[in-house]
């Protein structure tokens, strides 16, 4: 590891002050599961490291005004263990419960997952499926933006919208209601510690007649950001939900994957097959959840 000065603020204002002061060359460390390895391998050589693990005020899960608000420092283990998230927001529960290993879930935070913005980020795929928003704070104040805009943002290191003196403090999304089902399915090379090959996320709302009123179909690892299967979503929206209807979208998904991987023909076959496998599982899961809810 290169030399650096180390700070461990205990309040958000103190952290923001430090970030501003060392704006030119800093690295934030939360759980450390991504960044400590980079520091150790000297892939990253900041002059100052700011450990935010002691900002306990950013560790929370709140249910307010129909929203689920999660502090950036909340661990994957804490999210996976929350009973209300397990019951109502299965896409997030499953994604967090399957990150890495128990040790990595204890350390790794949702804010770190979204800030790393890795193509294989399971938290990213789940949160995009939920159309989440993130809150960023600096000494100058706070800004809120959609996660997809954050991911496409042109921040200081081009990974996302973060400026070098900004801290992500929260991610929030509308809590799925009784007419909405969500699911996540990850296809990975190994059972544990597996970085996703494809992480599929699905959210679907229906009205009393079973007609689809909202739908989100996302695939992690297929592109730079969780891929939106737009044609498939449009095909389903406004129609009566059934397994047949959902399966009609598979060729549309194939086409998109094919299109995006034109330059990497070797990966097309397995990605195509995996997309089909992953989404078939999601369709069955979602229908089972909705039948229970809608039928009751």
């Amino acid at each position: 590891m290169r030399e650096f000065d180390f700070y461990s603020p205990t309040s958000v204002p103190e952290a923001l002050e430090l970030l501003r002061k060392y704006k030119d060359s800093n690295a934030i460390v939360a759980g450390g599961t991504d960044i400590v390895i980079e520091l150790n391998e000297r892939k990253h050589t900041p002059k100052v490291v700011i450990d935010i693990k002691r900002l306990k005020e950013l560790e929370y899960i709140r249910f307010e005004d129909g929203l689920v608000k999660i502090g950036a420092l909340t661990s994957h283990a804490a999210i996976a263990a929350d009973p209300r998230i397990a019951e109502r927001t299965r896409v997030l529960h499953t994604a967090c419960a399957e990150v890495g290993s128990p040790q990595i879930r204890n350390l790794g935070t949702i804010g770190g997952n979204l800030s790393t913005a890795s193509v294989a980020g399971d938290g990213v795929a789940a949160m995009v499926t939920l159309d989440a928003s993130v809150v960023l704070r600096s000494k100058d104040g706070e800004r809120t933006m959609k996660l997809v805009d954050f991911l496409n943002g042109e921040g200081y290191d081009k990974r996302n919208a973060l400026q070098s003196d900004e801290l992500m403090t929260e991610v929030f999304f509308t809590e799925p209601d009784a007419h909405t089902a969500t699911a996540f399915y990850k296809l990975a090379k190994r059972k544990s510690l597996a970085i996703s090959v494809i992480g599929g996320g699905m959210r679907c709302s229906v009205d009393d007649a079973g007609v689809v009123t909202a739908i989100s179909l996302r695939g992690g690892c297929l592109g730079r950001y969780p891929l939106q299967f737009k044609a498939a979503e449009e095909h389903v929206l406004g129609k009566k939900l059934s397994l047949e209807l959902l399966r009609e979208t598979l060729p549309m998904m194939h086409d998109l994957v094919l299109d995006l991987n034109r330059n990497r023909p070797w990966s097309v076959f397995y990605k195509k097959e995996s997309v089909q496998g992953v989404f078939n599982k999601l369709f069955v899961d979602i229908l089972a959840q909705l039948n229970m809810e809608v039928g009751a």
Partner: protein
Amino acid sequence: MNKIKITCTVNGEAVCREVYPNQRLLDFLREELGLTSVKEGCGEGECGACTVIFNGEPVTSCCMLAGQAEGADIVTLEGLSKNGEMDKIQKAFIEVGAVQCGFCTPGMVLTAKALLDKNPHPTMDEIKLAMSGNLCRCTGYAKIHQAVAKAAAE
């Protein structure tokens, strides 16, 4: 580079050290405190050999910075035996034959300890899930899982 002061509890004893911050928790425990039961396998969070119990939870110490130990309560394998007598998990590993080269064993035992402290009577599935972040190249996992179950039954 300025030194930092780390005050924490390690294996039940108060520790206070002034160190350079550019080291991992793993390095701090091994090099500064001489706790060499903490092993470095992959150095990338994959193998679990560097597992320690940090505020009650198993974590991989290669993914943490030394400075993050400030105020924490840390347990390594050295902290398990009491008055020269091994912990029941250590005994079970020996009795079942869950140790071959032994490199993964400290991490395995600590992960099992963190599990049993929270859930004294886990099912086999709970044992397998809890131990899934610790890799072993020699023994195979059946004996390791059996050893944890044996310790839980005592």
